[in-house]
């Protein structure tokens, strides 16, 4: 049984000890709250299990006879599976849920009732989503690299920490694009619809169109990830591995050939960065404007 005094006397109204200025304290609290929410629940568990695929599979493949060299495994898992599928999927689940989850759980009221500008609320939630997705992607990417290059001389020299740091940085950069885009997906539509729309985008743009040697691939985040990878990274070791026939070997074509990207005509690294960040900033602005004008009607028992 709860205990409350039967006769209650409250003091006069006083000014609450709220800091003046830009409410950095409130935004920091919101950021921490969002991180705490992101670090619990089934979503993190499911994503961690998915991210174990590129960690476990290379390990299994390496046990097989005539296994491909680390560069081929790195290309398949670190530069294809993760950026094509797992990274955007992680961003979709966290960024689209930044506002949508609170709407579905009917707890957005507790955020909208605070003296925070809506655009700041939106950006802070997305910033926490970006940090979560970047850490998750970066952690498992590093683990994958360790497994791929395990027992090779490159591991403790070229791969760790330099190559891993660049790849993780590239992933974090890609997540800026994904989070700013998927944040908009989570405004105004139902969770199922935003997830469905996001999956369609991932499959069509990041999965299919990014592979066509056409201008349209510049609409995908993966394209910029690839160009930057080619600018900043080169395969660290041999690109040949033995086949079943003695004396023969399979040659892995250069990454630029597989991706159909000619660095002499492609964007420079600076231009890639500028485009990616500028488009992300545009998406963030669109999202903030949408958030500012959006109504979030909470379901009530009376349904009025």
């Amino acid at each position: 049984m709860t205990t409350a005094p039967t006769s209650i006397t409250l003091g006069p109204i006083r000014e609450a000890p709220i800091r003046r200025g830009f409410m950095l304290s409130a935004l920091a609290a919101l950021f921490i709250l969002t991180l705490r929410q992101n670090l619990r629940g089934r979503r993190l568990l499911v994503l961690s299990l998915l991210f174990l695929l590129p960690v476990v599979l290379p390990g299994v493949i390496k046990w097989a006879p005539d296994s491909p060299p680390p560069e081929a495994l790195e290309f398949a898992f670190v530069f294809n599976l993760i950026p094509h599928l797992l990274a955007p999927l992680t961003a979709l689940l966290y960024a689209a849920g930044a506002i949508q989850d609170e709407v579905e759980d009917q707890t957005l009221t507790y955020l909208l009732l605070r003296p925070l500008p809506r655009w700041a609320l939106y950006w802070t939630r997305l910033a926490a989503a970006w940090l979560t997705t970047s850490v998750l992607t970066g952690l498992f990417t590093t683990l994958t690299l360790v497994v791929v290059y395990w027992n090779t001389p490159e591991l403790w020299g070229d791969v760790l920490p330099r190559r891993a740091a660049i790849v993780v940085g590239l992933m974090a950069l890609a997540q800026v694009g994904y989070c700013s885009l998927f944040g908009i997906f989570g405004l105004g539509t139902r969770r199922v619809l935003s997830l469905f729309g996001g999956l369609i985008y991932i499959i069509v743009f990041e999965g299919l169109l990014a592979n066509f040697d056409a201008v349209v691939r510049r609409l995908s985040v993966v394209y910029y990830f690839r160009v930057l990878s080619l600018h900043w990274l080169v395969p660290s070791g041999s690109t040949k591995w033995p086949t079943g026939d003695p004396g023969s070997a399979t040659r892995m074509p250069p990454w630029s050939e597989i991706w159909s990207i000619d660095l002499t005509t492609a964007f420079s690294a600076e231009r890639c960065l500028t485009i990616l960040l500028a488009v992300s900033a545009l998406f963030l602005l669109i999202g903030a404007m949408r958030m500012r004008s959006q109504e979030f009607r909470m379901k009530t028992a009376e349904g009025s």
Partner: protein
Amino acid sequence: MTPIIDFEGVSKWYGNVIGLNKLTVRIPAGVTGLLGPNGAGKSTLLQLATGQLRPSQGRVRVLGQPVWNNAALLRQVGLCPEQDAFWEWMTGFDFVRTCARLTGMGRRAASEAAERALATVGMTEHMGRAIRGYSKGMRQRTKLAQALVHEPRVLFLDEPFTGTDPLGRHEMIEVIRALGAAGRSVLVSSHVLYEVQALTPNIILLHRGRLVAEGHVRQIRDLIDAHPHRIVLVCDNHRALAAKVVAWDDVEGVKVMSSESALLVETRRPDAFYGRLPILATRDGVRIREVYSEDDNLEAVFKYLVNK
């Protein structure tokens, strides 16, 4: 006198459905009850007044300021929402402190404010427990605490008595009265006249998004007392409770609703009936889990007012 809450020709549509219909009402300082049956537009009014919704037409002002996208105003406004939603994994203290931190308070100030707010609603003893383990009454109190934690000048309480037991309801009423006595303006929504009557004589009646009446509760009571009042008591030992209740003079009829472990009581003196309930719960050891009034009587009054 300058109204604290000012709605001027406000309409709110949800597609083809109308939530509020050209509502003009000026609510002065003090405690005011907002009454109406389900679907009357009470929650819409409160969500408009707290800037969660934007009026389709008209003007909403609180403390003389427009509400929509006015973050600074929200420092002086608190809302206890109707929906039973929380960040369930938090403790009560953590939840209220987080709400205080989101208002811009520093760590220490937020902790002290959370302790004060939880003490005010009688939740000090349970504030270290996870919210997911709280009873309905505890959850209502915790929601009220988060609305109070930043010491707002204006409080909006949306159906704050839903699901509370008679004792909890009595205590909640005491808290709201004390808030009014301390100078806060409180707008309490309910679909049960007698709950609101215990708080304040000033009421606003809504029906289908329109203002039906506003003024002193006595005028409304005179109308409602012409109809038998039907009250539902949910209780595990409902047959034993029926035996006790049927002996009361002011009870005109008792119907046992076995499938719901509940009694439906008809009375023309609801004041007296409600007054006895806490005593019944404490002295006679009857554990009443929930008390609510069926809408029928209030609905009848609204029909009368709308058609007169």
